[in-house]
């Protein structure tokens, strides 16, 4: 029946139908994110009713001071930050998996998060304030710097031995341990900033403020548009490196530029909320399953999937232990590890088939 229908259609028409389906899935993801975002707003230890939340968001003037503080200074920044951080990590993981041609690549698994934490910790210990611009700029700047050192090492390795080889992942793991050791060293040496450094190793939305949200929003928007402009080149790269080169893609440059964006995205996100693992790894895989790998759809879908995951994690962090908001990094790790194992098993199965 379907074959008979297809026979009458040109391939271009069938492809157009496929594109419409992808746009529909993307819209559904966006809608789901909107709903989860509202649910995230409506959950919390203080138990505000739905109606109050809804009215308070639309019309903050008529709220009593207590509710307004809960809503506008706690819940909204948390929820918006969860969406932005998730989007940043999803987008970073997606392009990393493509340019390194490795399904296990993500800012967390290849040690960039650990490197960024070292950078941000150094900023705290030395009291670096980015020449008077304040912590909202200084922290992400140093986190970016730390991540960039890690990314540069990975780039050099990929340049020397090719990207897809497993040694990149092994090297990334070695990188992660080295930077974690550095971090322990910093924690051991610095007593005054110790508490803040420990905060990063868990990952928490607890320090979300509007200026920080502003900085991250700009970074995510700029990087998303920038990545999207290279969507065709990345799609061509999925068929193989030499094929892409022959199509006129400057593969080395694309890889370097993408890694810079990954550092920007994961460094900024990490500076504000700490290490959050697995979102950058699992988000792109969910997007790939739902939409395939045409990067015009895959990239935004990865960002949306990441945002969706972290918003769900944010809700879980508030309801798992009644009355307590758990650090969100703990939740993503607890949920992320089983999903990660599932991916590895699927990958192994895929190789055998």
């Amino acid at each position: 029946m379907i074959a008979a229908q297809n026979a009458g259609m040109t391939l271009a028409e069938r492809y157009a139908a496929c594109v419409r389906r992808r746009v529909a899935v993307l819209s559904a993801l966006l809608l789901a994110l909107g709903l989860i975002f509202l649910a995230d707003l409506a959950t919390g230890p203080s138990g505000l009713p739905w109606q109050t939340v809804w009215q308070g968001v639309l019309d903050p003037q008529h709220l009593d001071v207590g509710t307004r503080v809960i809503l506008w200074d706690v819940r909204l920044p948390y929820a918006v930050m969860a969406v932005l951080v998730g989007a940043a990590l999803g987008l970073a993981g997606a392009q990393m998996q493509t340019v390194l041609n490795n399904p296990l690549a993500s800012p967390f698994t290849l040690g960039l998060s650990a490197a960024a934490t070292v950078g941000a910790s150094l900023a705290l210990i030395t009291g670096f304030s980015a020449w008077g611009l304040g912590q909202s700029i200084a922290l992400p700047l140093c986190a970016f710097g730390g991540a960039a050192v890690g990314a540069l090492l990975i780039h050099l390795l990929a340049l020397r031995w090719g990207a897809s080889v497993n040694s990149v992942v092994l090297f990334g793991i070695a990188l992660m341990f080295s930077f974690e050791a550095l971090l322990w060293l910093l924690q051991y040496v610095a007593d005054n900033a110790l508490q803040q450094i420990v905060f990063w190793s868990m990952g928490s939305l607890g320090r979300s403020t509007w200026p920080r949200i502003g900085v991250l929003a700009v970074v995510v928007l700029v990087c998303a548009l920038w990545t999207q402009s290279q969507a065709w080149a990345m799609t061509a790269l999925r068929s193989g490196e030499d094929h892409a080169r022959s199509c006129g893609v400057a593969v080395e440059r694309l890889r370097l530029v993408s890694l810079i964006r990954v550092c920007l995205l994961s460094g900024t996100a990490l500076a504000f909320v700490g290490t959050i693992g697995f979102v950058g790894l699992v988000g792109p895989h969910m997007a790939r399953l739902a939409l395939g790998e045409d990067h015009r759809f895959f990239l935004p879908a990865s960002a949306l999937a990441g945002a969706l995951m972290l918003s769900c994690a944010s809700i879980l962090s508030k309801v798992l232990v009644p009355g307590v908001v758990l650090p969100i990094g703990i939740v993503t790790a607890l949920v992320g590890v089983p999903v990660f194992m599932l991916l590895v098993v699927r990958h192994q199965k895929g190789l055998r088939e």
Partner: protein
Amino acid sequence: MNAQQCCFTAAARSPAAPATEVPAGLVLRGLGVSYGSKAVVRDIDLAPLPTGCVVAMVGANGAGKSSTLRALAGLNPMSGQALLDGDDLAALDPATRARRVAYMPQSLPQASSLTVYESVLSAVRTACPQLGTAVVHQRIETVLGDLGLRDLAMRPLLALSGGQRQMAGLAQLLVREPRLLLLDEPTSALDLRWQLCLMEALRRHVAGRQALCLMAVHDLNLAARFCSDMLVMAQGRLIARGAPGRILTPDLLRRAYGIAARVETCSLGTPLVIAERAFDPE
């Protein structure tokens, strides 16, 4: 269409043209490829390749076939000159080169979750960004039809067999409609049926567009059957060139492969190479 006719007439006229005029087609002058200080290809001179037919490039492993193809495709640096319709390939910027020269790597296209249609679309979008949407989809329709991939068009590459995946790779190449096609052992991973399908499709395309095509291949009998012109390489040098029936001799095979072989004529009229014994390496 006009451009194609242009190339056609230029190519047809070239043998009669005066010697000072740059000949159409592919001309190599002293081409060399080195990795570091190690020269793997040396002093290759080549009169213009014939248009409209697949030219085979044969030789032992490590003879420099792949290196030559990669250098022409712009993936490796080269010394000497490679002129395509009078333009030095080394001087072309990557975008222009991608429009005129297409290369198919030895490995199969990666088993991604891209559909065949998407993978072909991404190839033409990156290599020929100047084309309009209608032309692009028309080209894909034609190529996938020609290669018998219509029914597989919306299937992801990872769900295809090796042979089907290689045909998708060929579609990614042909859809760009390049002047020069470079293929590195396109049949080595394929069973007999897919070898036949791929060679037939390639030959049709190259003849139909009067394109230039250079194909590295190990199977001498396949090459002898589908190619009227053959280049034989050994130790980085071109040691013979001509019609397979003329140049394939036991002596050449000894020099190129280090084997004792018989060359007979099969009932199709093409030469048939039977390898008998390997000589010990000197």
